[in-house]
Every structure is written in C-alpha cells, then in structure tokens.
C-alpha cells in the first residue's frame, strides 16, 4: 500500500479548495461509476455529480476541516472520514458536516468512488 495517509493528506485540501473556489473542477475527481450521496439525494457519474455540486444553492462556500482520518482498504483504496464546518454565503453560523470518501486507484491516480456528505448539526 502506498502512503495512504499522504494521499489523504493531499486529497482533502485539494478537494475542499476546489469545492470552495471552482466547483466545476471537482468533475475530474469522479468517474462514471462514482456515487455521491449529498444529504438525502444520490447522484451518479462525474457529469451529474459535478452538475449537482455546482447547482447547490449557495454562491460562497468555505469548508473548514476539523478532523480527518484515513485507513487503507483492501484492494488498494482509502477510506477517509472528514468532519468540519461549512460556512455558506453570509450565514453567520457555520454548518457542521461529516463526509466519507472512498478513494480508489485507477490509472496511477486516485478518484472518488463514493462520496457521502451529511450535515450533522441543525444550524
């Protein structure tokens, strides 16, 4: 197993920075078989996932990652669990989120196979 902690270390900032600054750029992280569970809705495939993320009804968004943990999974992937706060537009109170990723290696780079996002605090 490659350095999964290092991969997670790179992936997490990249993911949230891209999310916060250029959501369309997230498309490259998914594949046609990727699954996104965003709150109660599910979306499949890079194209639709990107569309879903881009269409989220807020303009400004800032993620603050509070915790991250990662474990290698059998077969060469990584499971990542992130929690943190999400500041949306001008809302004063940040939202709390928990997000699980399954990263799989394909063609020398990792992609997001599963992405499960959940708000966990009633802001």
């Amino acid at each position, binding site marked *: 197993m490659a350095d999964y902690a290092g991969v997670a270390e790179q992936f997490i900032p990249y993911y949230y920075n891209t999310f916060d600054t250029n959501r369309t750029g997230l498309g490259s992280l998914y594949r*046609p078989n990727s699954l996104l569970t965003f709150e109660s809705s599910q979306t*499949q495939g890079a194209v639709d996932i990107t569309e879903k993320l881009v269409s989220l009804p807020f303009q400004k968004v800032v993620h603050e990652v509070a915790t991250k943990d990662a474990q290698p999974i059998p077969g060469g992937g990584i499971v990542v669990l992130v929690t943190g706060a999400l500041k949306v537009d001008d809302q004063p109170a940040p*939202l709390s989120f928990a997000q699980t990723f399954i990263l799989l290696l394909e063609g020398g780079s990792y992609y997001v196979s599963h992405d*499960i996002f959940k708000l966990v605090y009633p802001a």
Partner: protein
Amino acid sequence: MSGRSSLPANLGRRTGGGGGIQKRRASARIDREGDLDMGGQVPGPRARPISGAKPRPTRSNTASGQKPEAGPPKGFRPVRSAARHPVGTVNGIKQPAGGLIEMKVSGWKELKVTTTETVLFLERRLKEKLRRVRPVGDNIMFQIPLVKVPTVLEWDNMKFAGGNLRIQPVNELPASIQAAIKPTVDRSEEAQQLATLLKNVLQSRYVVDSKMLDLSALGTHPQLQDSGFFNQDSTRAKMFPAMMKVADEQFTNRAEKRESVISVNLANNTLNDISMVASLAATFPELKNLSLENNNITTFKQLEPWRFKFRKLEQLFLAGNPITQLPNYREDCRKWWKSLIMLDGEFYPEPPPALRSDKSAGPGPFPPMPLTIYPSGVIDDEDHTNDFLSKFFPTFDSDRKLCVQTFYDDQSTFSISVNVSAPRLSGDTKHNIQKWDSYIPKSRNMVRLRNPTAIKDRCARGPAAILKTWDTLPRTLHDVSDPTKWNYDSRNISFEDTVGMLLTVHGEYEEPENVAMEGIASKRSFTRTFMVLPNGPTGYLIRRDMLLVRAYGGSGAWQPETLMPQLAQAPQPAVPQVPQQPVNAAPQPTAAQPVADPKQQIIKQQLIQQVMEQTGLTPAYAEMCLEQTGWNLAQAVQAFIEVRASGQLPSDALARPAV
C-alpha cells in the same frame, strides 16, 4: 481415542478400483463379498456377545466334524459328512467348514421391508443361501458358515432400503472365528497409527487466522505421501472419511466446530464426485465457505450427498470443474444451498433464499428490526443495515470483548478521531461535557496529528489491538430503540472480491459513568463509518471502522422539519440523463421512463450502479441493459455477458475494463 471404534470399516483392505480417488459408498462393501481375505475391518459392536439370547447352545466347541446343518426348526443334527471333508453336503446342500454360526439381523422392520426381501438382499450379497432363516420378534435369525462370518459382519450397518441393517452374532463367537478375524486387531493398531497421522495432517493444514481447514491437493501432503497412503487406491478411498472422524474427535460440541472451522478447501483433489468426502457435511454441518475448485465434478448428481446439507454455506467455489458449464449452474447451486451468497467469487444479486424465512441461517434479509433507523440516503439493503446496527451497538455497549470477537478479525482496523470544535446543541448544557481527556490519547485526527508513526500506531489492527483501544474509551450506551436519534447512509461496495456494505452512521450515545459519578447525563454525538463484509459468526465482519466523536449536537439535522434552508432545493432527478448518445450501430440506450415514485428512481439508480460495477459499462449502457431486461440485475448482467461474448459490444460501452 479408541482406534477401533472410531475408525470403523474404513481401513479394511479393498481390492480393485480404478485411477483417481475412489468413491466411498455403501456398495464399496459389496465389492468385498466373498472376499476371504480376512483383513476386512469389522465394526466395533460386532464382537460383543449377546448374552441374554441363548436360543441354541454355542457351537463354538463343536468338533469340526460335528457340523450342524440347516434342518428343521427344532434343534439341529450333527452333519453326517465325514470330519475330514472340509466341505460336504447335507441333503444336497453344501456344508461349510467350521460349522454354521447363528446370526441375527435387525433394523429391517423400521425400513418397511419384509423378511423375505431382507433375506434375499443378504443372500444376493453372500451369493449363497442363508440357513435356518426364521423371524424372532424384531430379528431375523439365520445361520451362515463360519468362514463367512467376517464378511457378513462387515455388512453391519449396511445401507438398505434407505436405512441401516444391523447384523450381529447371537452368541459369543467361537475361538476359531476369533482367530479368523484376528487380523483386525492388528489393523486396529494400524488404525491408531493412522489416526495419529491424520491428526498431524489436520493440524498442519489448519489455518488458524482464517479458521480454514486446507485439505487441498492432499495427495501432495508429505506425511501422507510418506505413509504410502496414496499408493493404494483402496487406502486412499478410506483416508478422507477416517480424517473426518479424527477431525470430529477434536471437538467436544457443534459450537466449537462452528467457531473453529469456517472454511474448508478441497481444491485440487481430482475428485470425480464428492462421495468420498461426503462425511464433511456431517462433520462440519455449519461450514460457511467451501472450495472444490479444480476437481472433476461434472454434474449435480455427483454432488448429491451434499444436497441441502451445509445449511449455512455462504460461499462455494466450483470453478475449474466442468459442472460450471451447465446451463443453469448458478441458479441450481442456489437451489441446493439456499444460504449461498456467493458462488465462484461472484455475488448473487439477490439475497439468499434460505434467509428469507430462516433467521438462524446467517446473514441476509432479516425479520422486522426492533430498530428502524431513518435512512437519509437511499438504502441498498435497509434490512441488513438495520440488523447490523441493532446487533452491533448493543454488543459494543454491553460487552466490548464479545463485540470485538464477534464482528472483527485479524484484518479489521479501527481508529477514532475527536472533533473538539464541533458545536454543542445550542441551549443544552446538561447533556454536554467538553472533557475529552479519555479520547484524546487515541484520537487519530490527522489535522492535528502529524507524526507518521503516531498516525500508524493509532490505527488498531486485529481484535486484540482494537479491544485495547476500546478499553481506554469511556463506556457507552447507544439507544437503539429511538430511531429519531439515528441516521445513516448505506451502500453496497465491492471489495475483497465480494460485495460488502459501506455504512456511515450518525447518532448519539451516553456515557453512563458520568451519569453515575457526576450525576449528569452526558451525551456525545458521533459519526461512524464501517466497511462490512458478509462474513463472520453473525454475517457481519467489520473490515474498517472509523469513529468520530464530537460534542452532543442533537439529532435535529436529520429531522424532516428542520431541513437546512441553506441547502434546501428542488430535488434533483435521480435518474441521470443519458450523457451521450452512443454512436454507431449499437442499440440506443433509452432513458428510464419518468416515474413518479422517487424511491423507484433511486432503486433504478442503484441497479444501474450495480450493473456498472459488475460489467464496467457506462451508465447509459448499464441502464439500457436493465431497461431491456425489465430491470432485472442478474439478467442485465447476463445480457451484457452474452453481448460481449458475441463480440457486438460497442467500443464506447465500457467505462472501464470489466471486473
């Protein structure tokens, strides 16, 4: 162990037999009929004198010349033939040397056969008439020549008309016959040696970690080779049943067996059928995984002895056997072993039939749960998830040692991280404690923890390490009775060559010690991500477990009435648009019919995903496959296989190489 009684009839010399491992079946004994090599093993009970019944004086001491004859019902007369003739005739009937021995056969009445049928059966085998046949109560008494006694005694417990016949001598056997069957005594020593050998073999082939008995390619086992066991077809045929007997004796009860041997590997044994190894089903009836790979099994008939056996079998491997080419091979396998989850490394799309009605048979759909956790996302397998959660958390709360033994194995890993900055439920002070002392030493939050060694160390691998970590954490009490406190998202996910469950669960728990010590009902919120395989004693084997603990934030986040306005929006269409029209001659994928029921859309999307995972098709083609097969997963995958085999799969249909 007692060599003789534990290895009945397995070690007798048997002649003939072709190449390969020999079958063992009732008729094998028939081959020995008339075999005057007295080496045949005699079943244990046969030597016991039947003391009570003394219908006739023992003839054991009768002088050889004083042979009794088959005569009228009362008494018997000395044979008139000369003593020096070992074989004479009386009334036209050949008389044997050594006299006649009174035997009795029982067990036939239960089999609903007549006296005549039973006698004819025995006579066919003996190739001569039984003498002085008469029913006495539940027994049929008869006489046979002394020299035939060992042969006939070998038939004790013989299969007949669907049951077993008991054949026993009525009286203590004469010294002459004891001498005749003397070789069996030596064989019993041989049996003991063999038992020791087999025990060694078993021990050397037992894989502790995976609880697997690896009996693959037994012919290559050095000890068995040295023993010369495989030089003779005859002994080879008896080796496996004897081995099972020895295996059986290693355990005191069924539970012990169940816990010690989960898997048996019989690959590469050149088996033409399983009759020789059939006793496996009796020895390990609750086996979960069984491999018969690379043998020579061609039909289901050859597996007949195991039909409906192994009621808890989850994985079967028959790859490398011609049987896999049969038209309805997969379906038929499942008819015979209804608990199968996976065949030849491929998951059945449907839950095992046995489990639909039989809870005790292992994992699968389950009866109504005491706990109905609100699923937020869409659940592939709601029953499994609910069942897992309602089993796991109460065990975790009440007995962590049991929990780790039940749900984890050597390859399982656990880590915990603490989010100390998560908001507390506003206005709630009594449930909240902000002391994290007991959690911090184990927290693997990689935002704060930078030391690679610490990061590595804080991921506990294997039951012992996991339990050690858990022991440092406060006791917990998860209330699984209140579904509103819970939320989860569960997905099927392929890993380790099977389909497991990726589950993220959000909830809360109390720390009872704080209640006791500080008088406050302290609660915390948590998120826990599991990767679970359908395996282990409960059918849930946790491979990955990541726990995140934070301040108590309540469960308002997933109550319908408190949906976050910030993120509220029109629901997305669940069925994806067809991304591109596939080019050229391929049939055009059609978008799913618009359906009013969002749940149905979601189910469809799950199916699409599963087809994609199994075939590597693009979403559009996966959907097309499903559309054309009435949204039947198995058929869709089958359709894909057929199209691919026919070489008509469009080049753009695959998103990735098929798995």
